[in-house]
């Protein structure tokens, strides 16, 4: 343990004495101060703080990632290239201790830099928070009296300096609807007729069809097919809001007004179904199942664009339920609402602890990159190692884009190239983590709660959405199980150690 600490300490000193770190620190300071004082966002205070948080945290992350890659790579490879390792390896230091010590040193230094950077970002954001909004400025100068609520201030306090958990609506009970529908169909037409129709429709050959009809197994098969087609239909229907109709979304597990007074936010995205309309007329109504109801609020919405509005906490019932109606007021266009397109956000914690967790999200990336740099650094030269790690970093960063770009087309048979690129990218991301999956800066900008389970996902393994009774409903969403970056870090370190252990440190001399 002592000698790991010795290497860690030594790494710390070594990194701190390189020029590159000074340059990066300077850059970091310029970025943070520049974004804090120069960027104005969309002109609102909320926009300014969001811009600041977004740019400062992502630039911090980017710079720290780069410096991690270059430092780790350079110290490890220079140890070998300049043969410093001869002296070190002839001391009672196991190879794994060296690997771990080096990694710990870099991560420690980066952690320290991260704390300093995030600390300054935090202080600056608090400074910005104290700036007046436009309405406050006007009120101060006595020009106008604020009559309306100061949406800017509300936004700053309720959408940024908070930690809000996301609640999805209760999924509809597909199986129940299915059973009802099947029952209805059987009553109307009789099971035999249903099966007969289905087989006749799918099998053109009459003799074959007869044969199938006579066999109980094939009959059951046909019935299953009817059922699953119906299920698909119902799932599809559950997301569609036809003109003049409404969809009811129930959210549960919220905190009642008595427990939390802060405003809730509903965030949604509406998709015109098989239509190119860009604006959609609709209305929203928020209902407390036990109490007050607001009149429907009609709005014209921008299609396929996330929109939101605030909800007063009194609409949450004592059992933590909230019902939301969406009315489609379009004369013709059907609106499609995907399962994750409507969410309710409610405050569950403070900004500070969330900010700290965002720091952990950034840290795990640095840890991973340091580990990968160690892994390659123990057997490759500096240029190759840094290039390789940079590639991994870049690919990880644009993972969302790569996934989108190589998605298999929904219609038609994909070409060989499409298959190739699709599976190639899938293969790559078995090893390379998707950095873009959880972006600390995006979460901070939205004041979204970084749940322990998010951290677990990033550090250990992905837990999929817990299956509900109508599990099939969720299966339409991409189901993915992935190891987190923490596990990959450990793996990279372990592989690095294995390679390093077998590595002969002295070549021909």
């Amino acid at each position, binding site marked *: 343990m002592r000698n790991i*600490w010795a290497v860690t300490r030594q790494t710390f000193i070594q990194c701190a004495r390189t020029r590159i770190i000074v340059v990066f620190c300077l850059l970091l300071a310029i970025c943070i101060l520049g974004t804090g004082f120069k960027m104005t966002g969309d002109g609102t205070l909320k926009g300014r703080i969001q811009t600041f948080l977004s740019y400062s945290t992502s630039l911090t992350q980017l710079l720290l990632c780069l410096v991690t890659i270059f430092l780790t790579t350079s110290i490890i490879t220079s140890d070998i290239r300049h043969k410093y390792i001869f002296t070190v390896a002839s*001391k009672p230091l196991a190879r794994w201790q060296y690997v771990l010590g080096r990694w710990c040193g870099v991560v420690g230094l980066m952690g320290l830099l991260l704390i300093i950077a995030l600390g300054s970002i935090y202080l600056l954001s608090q400074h910005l928070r104290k700036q007046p909004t436009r309405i406050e400025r006007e009120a101060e100068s006595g020009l106008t009296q604020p009559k309306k609520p100061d949406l800017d201030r509300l936004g700053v306090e309720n959408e940024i300096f908070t930690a809000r958990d996301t609640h999805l609506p209760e999924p509809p009970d597909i199986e129940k609807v299915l059973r009802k529908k099947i029952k209805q169909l059987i009553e109307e037409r009789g099971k035999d007729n249903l099966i007969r129709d289905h087989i006749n429709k799918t099998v053109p050959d009459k003799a074959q069809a007869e044969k199938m009809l006579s066999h109980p197994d094939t009959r059951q098969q046909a019935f299953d097919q009817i059922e699953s087609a119906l299920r698909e239909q119902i799932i599809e229907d559950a997301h569609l809001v036809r003109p003049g109709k409404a969809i009811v979304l129930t959210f549960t597990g919220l905190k009642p007004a008595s427990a939390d007074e802060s405003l809730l936010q509903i965030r949604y995205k509406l998709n015109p179904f098989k239509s190119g309309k860009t604006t959609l007329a609709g209305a929203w109504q928020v209902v407390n199942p036990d109490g007050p109801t607001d009149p429907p609020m009609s709005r014209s919405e921008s299609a396929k664009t996330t929109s939101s509005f605030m909800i007063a906490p009194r609409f949450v019932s004592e059992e933590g339920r909230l019902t939301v109606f969406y009315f489609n007021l379009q004369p013709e266009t059907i609106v499609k609402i995907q399962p994750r397109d409507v969410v309710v956000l409610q405050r569950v914690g403070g900004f500070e602890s969330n900010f700290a967790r965002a720091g952990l999200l950034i840290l795990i990336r640095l840890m991973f990159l340091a580990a990968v740099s160690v892994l390659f650094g123990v057997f490759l030269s500096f240029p190759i190692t840094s290039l390789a790690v940079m590639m991994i970093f870049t690919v990880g960063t644009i993972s969302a884009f790569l996934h989108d770009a190589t998605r298999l087309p929904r219609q038609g048979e994909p070409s060989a190239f499409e298959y190739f690129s699709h599976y190639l990218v899938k293969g790559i991301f078995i090893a390379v983590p998707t950095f873009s999956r959880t972006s600390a800066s995006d979460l901070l900008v939205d004041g979204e709660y970084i749940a322990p389970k998010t951290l677990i996902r990033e550090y250990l393994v992905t837990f999929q959405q817990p299956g509900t009774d109508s599990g099939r409903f969720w299966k339409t969403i991409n189901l993915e199980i992935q190891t987190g970056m923490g596990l990959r870090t450990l793996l990279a370190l372990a592989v690095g150690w294995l390679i390093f252990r077998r590595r002969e440190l002295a070549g*021909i001399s």
Partner: protein
Amino acid sequence: MPANRNNDDVVRTVALTKIFRDFWLREKVAAVQSLDLNIRSGEVYGLLGPNGSGKSTTLKMILGLLYPTRGRVTVFGASPSDVRTKARIGFLPEESYLYPFLNANETLDYYGRLFGQPRRERKRRIGMLLDMVGLTGSAYRRIGEYSKGMQRRIGMAQALINDPDLLILDEPTSGMDPLAARQFKDLIKELSGRGKTLILSSHLLADTEDVCDRVGILFAGELRSEGTLEDLLNRASLTQIVTERLDDTTRDAVRRVLNQADKQVISIESPKDKLEALFLRIVRQAQVRHQTVDSVRTGELAEFLRASPQKTGRMVIEELLAKPETPATATEKPVVPPPSPTIRPKPDSGVIAELMGEAEEAKSPAPQPEETPPPPKIEQRTDKSVNRSVIDELIRGDGSEDR
């Protein structure tokens, strides 16, 4: 631990073979072949050979920096990569592979930490070692700014930080001026006197000759010859008489007496100084006038480098140190000048400058052995056919085989 310090083998290699492969895993160079070595506790063992003969490779296998292709190597009865083994080894590489951005103090502190030494002990040892190698005044200078000699000294200090039982020195005197080399050799002797086992590799035969108890001569990866210096160099068939200068009459008389005893006189001549001895003598005289030094060792041997219970130990060293200045011979102790480590020597005569230059160049063409005597009895272990002429050839071999 002390159990191993008796006559047990500290390092043992059995049929040790190292073959380097190229990128395509084709066998390229057989650097070491079927090497059997037994290095006993407390001895100073010299690995001799021209550049590229496999000395370094052997040492690196002993250190666990290289893995044997075939054969086995044990150090203190265990694998060289065993951490507990390494705790007892000190290693001075052929060049100073030390972090240039650390100062001497930090360097020693780092390596001390790697041995898990407690803080207080580390501080004590660092102070003593720096004092010993005369770098106390430069303790806070970055090693990158050190001269080559200073780097060797701090290298030596780091090799001694753990008070090793086995000290491995790869080309310890390479790049040193003769004075420094002399002091280095004295240090080696002193350490040996304190019961350390030392392995040193060198292609400078004079170095080896002065300090080694036993040497092995490697060529092309094979051990060609091995034995104690006594065995290897002693010409039992000859007798040398050294007297005051004889006039011709006396010479003839001596010749006659010998002839009567039926002994043939091979040569009668004035003995010549060894160049090294001459150099040392001149420098020492200069030092007395200028009191400057750039030496390996200026201070007292670090006290923690513990004495061997078997050997005369500290008393011997003190005795050695106390010896008055005598005309230099090959085995003479240098005078320890008053420490003033940061000032580099300023030889004032052109002769010295010339000599210095010669000493620098003397690295590759090894000093020629004495004039062709009849072949001595050599204890031949690995290759019976090796004879003196082979050795001559080996020794003449310059850097041409250096890879």
